[in-house]
């Protein structure tokens, strides 16, 4: 069985969540909008899911909108707030290290004459709360900043940011907490957010379900039209089983957090200690303000895609930073924003440890990563030497040198 160190991409569904979901995939199949007993039963299950998620977030049940996942929650928050606030203003403030479900959504809105401000980050990927403050104008309607970064694990000073946003009346604050959810406390009142996105599959819940917290009284325009589901904020027959699975997984992850977080932090530190000994390997993200189980590095001069591919063949699942299968060699916008030059950012490697990982797996992973980076470094140096010697020759000569290693 290969070792799975890609929990930032997704996590396995935990048994408790699965078992809580099963009744809703079998006997409890009713449509929550139906008037009969089957409908009422499903409706009760959905209501309970709302209540449990609300409790976990320090919110009220009607402030929770179930969605198809984190991407939809972010889309609903941003587009919903943008279109609802269009009468007051058109300026939206975000950061340069957001997930594409935020970054690409604001770029979409830009086509419709919204003004988008992407705030820079420091070399650890942190936004300066004072810059948020300074960027807000009377035309600003929304600030959207992620709670923790999915590629490098840096945690943003959300409370300090929300404090600044609060100084400006009428500006909404949305936080994408998809990556933060299992590891950080999500008390919406303490965080001071108007909207907060989560996705179940990041905390051992099912895929295809997420939730958006929308503070009572916040005006958000629905992004899909149809029935009256989720108090008109999200039309479409509800995914009752998914909502229940999300609720259970969220509760458990919160309850276990005091045990899980330090354990993951220790495993991560073990792995980091090993990787620090490797030449040319540099940790990325904030040294302390970071997710406990996420270790991200850049190996200068190496191709991160090639390293993850070789690791996969060796039995270790890892990532370059975000799940991408199309073979694009675009470098990470997150690392670019943090100031990493292209040749360093190309060597990105992300290892995200989860609750299922054992100390033995981490030791084995450290060994595999060291061996792979070592052999790739060797191959890269040999290639560089050949390129230099065949520089004046035709492309065939370079290629032949590459293929033969001579």
């Amino acid at each position, binding site marked *: 069985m290969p070792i799975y160190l890609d929990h930032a991409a997704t996590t396995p569904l935990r048994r408790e969540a699965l078992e809580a979901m099963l009744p809703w995939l079998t006997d409890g199949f009713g449509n929550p909008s139906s008037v009969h007993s089957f409908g009422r039963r499903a409706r009760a299950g959905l209501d309970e899911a709302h209540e449990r998620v609300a409790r976990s977030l320090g919110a009220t049940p009607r402030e929770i909108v179930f969605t198809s996942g984190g991407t939809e929650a972010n889309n609903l928050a941003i587009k919903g707030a943008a279109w609802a606030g269009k009468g007051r203003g058109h300026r939206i403030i975000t950061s340069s290290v957001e997930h*594409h479900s935020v970054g*690409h959504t604001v*770029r*979409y809105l830009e*086509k419709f004459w919204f003004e988008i401000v992407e705030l820079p980050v420091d070399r650890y990927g942190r936004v300066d709360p004072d810059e948020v403050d300074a960027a807000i104008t009377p035309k600003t309607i929304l600030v959207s900043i992620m709670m923790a970064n999915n590629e490098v694990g840096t945690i943003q000073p959300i409370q300090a940011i929300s404090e600044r946003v609060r100084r400006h009346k009428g500006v909404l604050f949305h936080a994408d907490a998809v990556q933060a959810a299992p590891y950080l406390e999500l008390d919406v009142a303490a965080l001071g957010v108007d909207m907060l996105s989560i996705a179940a599959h990041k905390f051992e819940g099912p895929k295809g379900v997420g939730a958006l917290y929308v503070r009572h009284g916040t005006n958000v325009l629905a992004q899909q039209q149809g029935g009256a589901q989720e108090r008109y904020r999200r039309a479409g027959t509800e995914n009752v089983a998914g909502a229940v699975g999300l609720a259970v997984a969220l509760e458990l992850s919160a309850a276990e957090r005091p045990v899980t977080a330090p354990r993951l932090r220790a495993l991560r530190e073990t792995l980091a200690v090993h990787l620090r000994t490797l030449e040319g390997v540099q940790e990325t993200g904030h040294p302390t303000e970071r997710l406990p189980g996420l270790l991200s590095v850049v190996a200068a001069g190496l191709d991160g*895609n*090639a390293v993850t*591919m*070789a690791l*996969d*063949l060796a039995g270790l699942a890892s990532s370059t930073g975000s799940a991408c*299968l*199309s*073979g*694009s*060699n*675009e470098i990470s916008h997150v690392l670019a924003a943090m100031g990493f030059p292209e040749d360093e950012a190309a060597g990105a490697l992300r290892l995200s440890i989860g609750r299922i990982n054992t100390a033995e797996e981490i030791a084995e992973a450290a060994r595999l990563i060291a061996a792979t980076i070592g*052999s*790739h470094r*060797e*191959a890269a140096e*040999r*290639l560089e030497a050949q390129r230099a010697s065949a520089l004046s020759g*035709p*492309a*065939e000569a*370079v*290629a*032949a040198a*590459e*293929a*033969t*290693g*001579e």
Partner: protein
Amino acid sequence: MTRVLVAMSGGVDSSVAAALVKANGDEAVGVWMRLSEVADSYSEFKRSCCSLDAAEDARRVASQLDIPFFVLNLEREFDQGVLQPFLDAYLGGRTPSPCVDCNSVVKFGALLGRARFLYDCEAVATGHYARVAAPAEAGPAGYGLLRGRDPQKDQSYFLYGLGQEQLAHTRFPLGEMTKPQVRDVARALGLATAEKRDSQEICFVPRGDYREVLRERRGWKAEPGPVIDVDGRQIGEHYGAASYTVGQRQGTGVAVGEPRYVWKIDADANTIRLGRRSDLATRDFQVEDVRFVACDPPPESEDGLRAEVQIRHRGRVAEASVRPLGSGRWAVRTDEPVWAAAPGQAAVFYHGDFVLGGGRIARSEDPVAG
């Protein structure tokens, strides 16, 4: 278990190649090479891309075969080694051989290097119809490159640039098979690509019009220039010399009794010269950048050798004497005339099924205009 990287294009041939590598007891690893920019960056307006569909087909087959699958980005290598020389050729009035470059520079160059030195693979396998012969104890030293068994599909012409070290790490699982047999295997295995049509066009030229790529990448513009007839008279105008290839009949916009063909192209003077069918027949031409497959190629000082020469894919072979001129340049004299030996095209030397080597047809010295 030997690990073999299989270059999967999303077509039926490379799908079956992957299946056969696995059936042979080797550990097959499928890769789809991303060779040019495709629509995966953020844009509301880019259409879905046919080449990504090909990657999806390859991925589907890999999962059917239960082998690992990755997309490898070789855009830079492809651009430098294949696309730029392709454009250079047209702009220089020559006919490009991109498949030859792609094999020697990309598939059995950059890809093979990565396979061996990054992914611990013993070899690269492709769906080419060609054969590799292991060094025989008695026979000639080194690996041999042979025509594929199916004469309809033989692709050895595009592979002459492979040297010994490359052949030592090359697998052509379809070499002994015919296309119908390959389809049968694909059907029997229920592969998603079993009924997929063969591709006909140059894979990186959208809608088959390379002039679009010339415009886009090199700022080429169609500028009218003179069309010169056999007798040296200007008899019309053409639409840019780079739009033509030697041997082409249509598109010269000129009608003069006996059929005319593009005979010579002078890109610098933006002039094309037409000839009658008989004018394009020749027994003598030169070949440059000649390479030989064997580890002991014939020395350039010798008198030369007899060989069968092939000047286009699936073209007929011509018995010929091949004589070295030095610096990788060889003179070919065929026993019977060959037709439309286009500068830039590959000329490949064979002994029966064995590929001896080959090179690119050189431009003849005589002037194009009058």
